[in-house]
């Protein structure tokens, strides 16, 4: 395999309230650049919990997390925010677009935050991403005027605006009908195969998982198959 982009070393997590429950036990795995990985398992097996730890948003765990071979333990909140901004793109079950902004501005926000390009350049890049996802016609619409499938595609565009090292998805097709699910899946596949984009998608949809390159299966807080 080529160089690793994400590595989990002995990650353990407990929920302490109301009683101590072990949710994740000794999670060890790594993802290489360009892989299209599905993380599956039954409801409640801890896959979403793991994803939020991997995404650096949840910092309450034991063990070590490396993104791009840099440890995320001991990093401060603002530094983690910067890592998320630069290296990770998110697609959630719900789109979470900001209704106050146009589609284009929604996509541009993380890019503007990064500050690596001028506003004009970020705008051009956002249009380019929208074009890849075939929704460039919607650019000037307000986010709340779109359909569910369109919103999810905008969310994907937002996730890739900063050319992240890895895209993480939490049931990105969970809220969509079959047709839109297929569109979203095809987009992921296109990103993975044509643009060599690394993807880590949490899903309990087996048919979705089967079509990816690699499946990590979890049960009861443990990885049973990588």
């Amino acid at each position, binding site marked *: 395999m080529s160089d690793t982009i994400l590595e989990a070393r002995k990650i353990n997590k407990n929920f302490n309230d109301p009683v101590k429950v072990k949710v994740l036990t000794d999670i060890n795995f790594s993802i290489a650049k360009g892989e299209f990985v599905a993380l599956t398992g039954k409801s409640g097996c801890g896959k*979403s919990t793991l994803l*939020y730890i991997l*995404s650096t*948003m*949840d910092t309450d765990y034991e063990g070590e997390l490396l993104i791009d071979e840099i440890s995320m333990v001991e990093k401060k*909140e*603002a530094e983690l*925010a*910067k890592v*998320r*901004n*630069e290296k990770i793109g*998110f697609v*959630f*079950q*719900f789109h*979470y*677009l*900001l*209704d*106050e*902004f146009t589609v284009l501005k929604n996509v541009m*926000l*993380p890019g*503007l*935050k*990064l*500050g690596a390009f001028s506003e004009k350049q970020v705008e051009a890049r956002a249009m380019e991403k929208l074009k890849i996802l075939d929704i460039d016609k919607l650019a000037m619409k307000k986010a709340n005027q779109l359909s569910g499938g369109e919103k999810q595609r905008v969310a994907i565009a*937002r996730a890739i605006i900063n050319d992240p090292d890895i895209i993480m998805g*939490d049931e990105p097709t969970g809220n969509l009908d079959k047709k839109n699910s297929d569109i979203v899946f095809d987009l992921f596949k296109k990103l993975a195969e044509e643009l060599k984009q690394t993807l880590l998608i949490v899903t309990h949809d087996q048919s979705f998982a089967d079509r990816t390159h690699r499946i990590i299966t979890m049960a009861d807080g443990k990885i049973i198959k990588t």
Partner: protein
Amino acid sequence: MNIKLIASIAKSLLVARWKQTLVAAVGVTFSITMFIALLSFMAGLNELLDGIMLNRTPHVRLYNEVAASKMQPIQKAHSNQNSYDFIRSIKPKHKVLVLRNSKAIMTALRKDNRVSGVAPKIMTQVFYNVGAVDLMGTIDGIEVEQESKLFLYKDYVTAGNYLDLKNVANSIILGKGLADKLLADIGDNVQVTTSKGERVSLKVVGYFESGILELDKVHSNCSIETTQKLLGESNTYITDIQIKLKDMALAPQLSKEYSQLFEVEAIDIQAANAQFETGSSIRTLISYAVGVTLLIVAGFGIYNILNMMIYEKIESIAILKATGFSGSDVNAIFIIIALSIGIFGGALGLLFGFGLSAIIDQIPFLTASLPSLKTYPVSYNLKYYVIACLFSIVTTYFAGYFPARKASKVDPVIIIRGK
């Protein structure tokens, strides 16, 4: 931190909730308006009330007083011995009230650069004769131009021309109450009897109203020269020297200094009129308290609206954080929202406050005791506008601080998973 980006996000959140924003801003505008109007009005009133007494009171007054000698002759004789002298029934010796060497003292004072003006005065007691009745009263001999310059004398002369006191020989300006009692119109002559028993006829050239009714019933003014003539004294006779200082706070210190230097009695304005300052400072304190209360109430309004905005926008906050905005970015967004409400509302408040003060300034207010007053008194001191401006910014900052801190601590995981 990218200020432009943060500000543009804050702006769209504000615009998206423009009705609530407007309500919050109107709250600030209202409180700043009232704050300014209230303080300007109160300050105007204070200046007026203080003016009645303080403007006419010299900061330091030099005079002589009938008093027992501090050093009795026997003490001088015994000054080197270890003994006590028991003296009973000491009486004040006859002492003329005239200030000796007054011309030289005034010249020296005028050269002192802490002094802004000096006006001589002769205080004397007289009887006003009207028919068979003698009314006791006082006449002050004044140098009318100096008196006007330093103590605004001309403001209190409500009828006649104050300069006639100097230009017309043997003239008098009567207190309004006294003129009514003497039934004297302008141009009439009044008879006065001096303390030495001489009877003199004086021509009435005007009335004054001091705002202190009892004073107006017994008091009148003549020129220095007329008063000297009245008393049969030479043209160096002066009983008081009134000093106006550049800085009133120096009065107690300078009063002691002059007393020793010129060997006269001296009294300062703080000792003479301590109660006036207390009154104005308490009035000012009350108006500040009311103004600040108004602002704090407006602050709670902003606090509520921001809190609601955060509840409504909690998902947006979560996604901003998930996509790389740090807690301090989110904090800055809400602080900017709060401050722009404060600055916008505050700026309007300053304008409306000025407008309201100007309106109050036009409302007629006539009172017998204050003849120079035609409308409600209003002060346009820039100080109140600066304070209001600072207060509006500080209150809105704090009103925004707590909601903003809450927003910055939003945990994106809980929000995103909670859906």
